[in-house]
């Protein structure tokens, strides 16, 4: 069966306009496929690299309860990476190829993971702010026009709410503790607040791909809309926790029915994206080392599978 290119394009547009899902074997514009591969790969890489700042604290968790929780969270992030690589593969790329591109710095991951986790309070703040911002970004992606991506996001969002809550609960425990512990929470909040706002990407005026992505219904809201939603969600949480968000311009604006807030340092975001963040090199070096030192395991598993398959055919022949 062969349809004319215009017909294919019309069918695709109609599917998207009707809020139906595009599935992997449907015809789709090359640019749509490329955009999705880039976005899903970047998202998958973020989950995988995102294990590092927290994984570093598993052995230093202050109790068995906190250790078990953190371990479960980091395992979830590995799972998220796997769901997303699998979604990317339905578009005709190979996971191994994406991993190579990551460790050769040819594909990006979220800028947020290039900041270090300096104290135990950072673990709480990462759950609260970083996973909180991720949830804001990800909930609308559950309705993304590309079926496998939307389905992966539904799984992921279900798991993320635990991530955010365990972080907030950890911080509440510290806030009930000593002055020194409260100071740690404030310090971690001060350091993670602005990078968390940057997770939504550059301001709308500086985000040339947003328009097209919204037309394709990959994206449902602009960067600034999502950032505003995050600020509005988070401000009362900070108050309940008893910390101050480090933005003197942050205040409720009754006319807008939303919080006014200050401008993040976009120059810093550009720097971190282009590789000059505090931990960029360390993150990639660690990912590369893990990939290389795991090679023998992958090879052994392949060899074992081949041996089993050979035995099975020999057994059948005998």
């Amino acid at each position, binding site marked *: *069966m062969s349809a004319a290119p215009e017909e294919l394009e019309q*069918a695709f547009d109609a599917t998207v306009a009707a809020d139906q899902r595009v*599935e*992997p*074997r*449907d015809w789709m514009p090359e640019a749509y496929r490329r955009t999705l591969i880039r976005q899903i790969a970047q998202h998958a890489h973020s989950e995988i690299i995102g294990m590092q700042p927290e994984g570093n604290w598993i052995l230093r968790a202050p109790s068995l309860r906190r250790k078990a929780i953190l371990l*479960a969270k980091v*395992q*979830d992030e590995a*799972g998220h990476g*796997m*769901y997303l690589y*699998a979604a990317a*593969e*339905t*578009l*005709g*790329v*190979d*996971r*191994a*190829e994406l991993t190579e591109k990551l460790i050769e710095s040819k594909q990006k991951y979220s800028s947020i993971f290039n900041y270090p986790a300096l104290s135990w309070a950072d673990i709480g703040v990462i759950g609260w702010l970083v996973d909180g911002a991720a949830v804001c970004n990800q909930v609308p992606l559950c309705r993304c026009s590309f079926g*496998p991506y939307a*389905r*992966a996001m539904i*799984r992921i969002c279900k*798991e993320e709410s635990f991530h955010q809550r365990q972080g907030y609960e950890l911080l509440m425990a510290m806030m009930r503790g000593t002055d020194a512990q409260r100071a740690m929470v404030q310090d971690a909040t001060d350091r993670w607040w602005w990078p968390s706002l940057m997770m939504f990407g550059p301001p709308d005026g500086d985000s040339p791909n947003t328009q097209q992505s919204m037309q394709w219904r990959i994206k449902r809201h602009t960067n600034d809309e999502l950032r505003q939603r995050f600020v509005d969600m988070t401000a009362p949480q900070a108050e309940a926790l008893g910390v101050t968000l480090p933005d003197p311009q942050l205040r409720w604006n009754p006319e807008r029915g939303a919080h006014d807030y200050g401008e993040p340092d976009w120059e810093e975001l550009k720097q971190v994206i282009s590789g000059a963040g505090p931990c960029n090199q360390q993150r990639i070096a660690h990912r590369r080392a893990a990939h290389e030192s795991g090679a023998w395991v992958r090879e052994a*598993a*392949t060899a*074992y*599978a081949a041996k*089993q*398959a050979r035995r099975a055919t020999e057994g059948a022949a005998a």
Partner: protein
Amino acid sequence: MTPAESGGPAPRDSWPLFEVFIRGKRGLNHVHVGSLHAPDAEMALHNARDLYTRRNEGVSIWVVDAAAITASSPEEKDPFFAPSGDKVYRHPTFYSIPDDVPHL
């Protein structure tokens, strides 16, 4: 044959792709939940447990080599589905029965 979910060419020399199906609880069908790579079916089963059932999402898992799945072509209006398209008499709503006839 093209795997059910994969649009592109077979992966280079990596492990085969398995599609994963999970029975959420007794009495339900196995439902497709995603896919993964593994060197063989047994490892695929273990990986599927770790990847897709970290929160008691299932009581049974199937893994199927994606290359073994035969799929219809994807378009919903495909002639493949035409035989059922014009058989409205297969649905109960096709038959009009007076409202005062009970239990029908």
